[in-house]
């Protein structure tokens, strides 16, 4: 039996790693809670989704203070995302746990490979006349002006992101951030802040569905959420001091191990 303290420590490590890599803790938490602690996947998802909300609110407070969040864009995309999450949340409660583990494994492989393409610099942003906005660059203090491109594609991707979030209890930032920055033309900082805002709303929707189905186990979800909150604080302070390239490679390897574990689970049926 794992104690509160041990689950709290798992939360801290997931929160730290997530903050250092700029992704939510969900893709790390769920494999740890199922593989290491041996929890049923739906209980792990319930704990993860609660932690995702905690992270989103904590990070959101920082981003909003800096004016990085594009509230208008996030609300428009959120129409598609919440509809996707609704479909995903209902499906997740009904679907067989092995199938859920299989889908999770596939998403982990996607995340491992999508991490390669994300760079924080060398970006070109411009006004497009659609949802134009600006923020002050935290480093230089100069205003960064940008607009939105490829909006319909963004709406479609938001639906998919919401669907996966509701289904698997992860934030979905791993889908939203690349779409917003690479396809819709948002600066990376604005994409992260905007995605973070949307994640909170989406996760809250699916979390209450999970709560009412009894998949939120307080003895797991609470130490996890508290741990992730603390871990994210530590991680965001450590982040700049660690070689991010190396960290990313290690993390990609870890994700592939997790993916193999999930796929094995899906095939052998150890729920």
């Amino acid at each position, binding site marked *: 039996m794992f104690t*509160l303290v041990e689950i709290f420590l798992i939360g801290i490590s997931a929160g730290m790693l997530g903050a250092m890599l700029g992704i939510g803790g969900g893709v790390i938490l769920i494999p740890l809670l199922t593989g290491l602690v041996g929890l049923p996947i739906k209980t792990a998802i319930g704990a993860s989704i*609660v932690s995702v*909300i*905690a992270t*989103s*609110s*904590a990070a*959101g*407070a920082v981003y*909003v*203070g800096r*004016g990085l*969040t594009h*509230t*208008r864009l996030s*609300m*428009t995309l*959120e*129409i598609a995302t*919440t*509809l996707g*999450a*609704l479909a995903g*949340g*209902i499906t997740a*409660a009904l679907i067989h746990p092995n199938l859920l583990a299989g889908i999770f494994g596939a998403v982990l492989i996607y995340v491992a490979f999508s991490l390669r393409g994300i760079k924080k610099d060398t970006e070109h942003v411009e006004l497009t006349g659609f949802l134009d906005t*600006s*923020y*002050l660059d935290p480093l230089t203090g100069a*205003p960064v002006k940008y607009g939105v491109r490829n909006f319909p594609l963004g709406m479609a991707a938001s639906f998919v992101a919401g669907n996966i979030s509701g289904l698997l209890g992860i934030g979905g930032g791993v889908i939203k951030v690349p779409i917003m920055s690479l396809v819709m033309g948002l600066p990376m900082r604005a994409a992260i802040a905007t995605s973070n*805002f949307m994640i*909170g*709303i989406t*996760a*809250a*929707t*699916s*979390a*209450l*569905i*999970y*709560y*009412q*189905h*009894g998949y*939120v*186990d*307080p*003895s*797991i*979800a*609470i130490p996890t*959420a*508290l741990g992730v*909150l603390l871990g994210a604080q530590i991680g965001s302070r450590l982040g700049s001091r660690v070689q991010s390239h190396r960290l990313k490679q290690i993390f990609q390897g870890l994700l592939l191990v997790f993916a193999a574990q999930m796929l094995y689970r899906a095939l052998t049926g150890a729920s």
Partner: protein
Amino acid sequence: MAESPQDQIHVNPNLDELVHGISETAQQAQALREQRDVNSVVHQMLIVGLAISVALMLFGLALDLFFHRVPPTVVPNLGDVLSRMAELRPSGFLAAGLLVLIITPVLRVVGSIFAFLYERDYLYVGITTLVLVIVLVSMMLGKS
């Protein structure tokens, strides 16, 4: 960075352009400042929601320790949370902490509706209200 702009003084030969540039920057700064006032309300909502929820969770865990109980593994029904809190049962406080955490982003959506009303941007009052309706409908559908 190769050069630091602070070390150099740039003299703009065209005075009109310079003055125009300054007033434009000032207007932008003003607009950003107003946006930040609305944002700071949202900012405080997030902090307060998070603080209340963490406090409730810690208090629930402390009660668990105080009574030497194993933490509950099942959440009470939504209707039973308040009565359990009144009886000082740990499960009531733990569930309340979880629910405050879950509700906080939804309250932020409500806050955004008022922010758009304040800015008289009725299109986005409508869009944000639609998001809120979908969220609330999802939460109710999830009961089954």
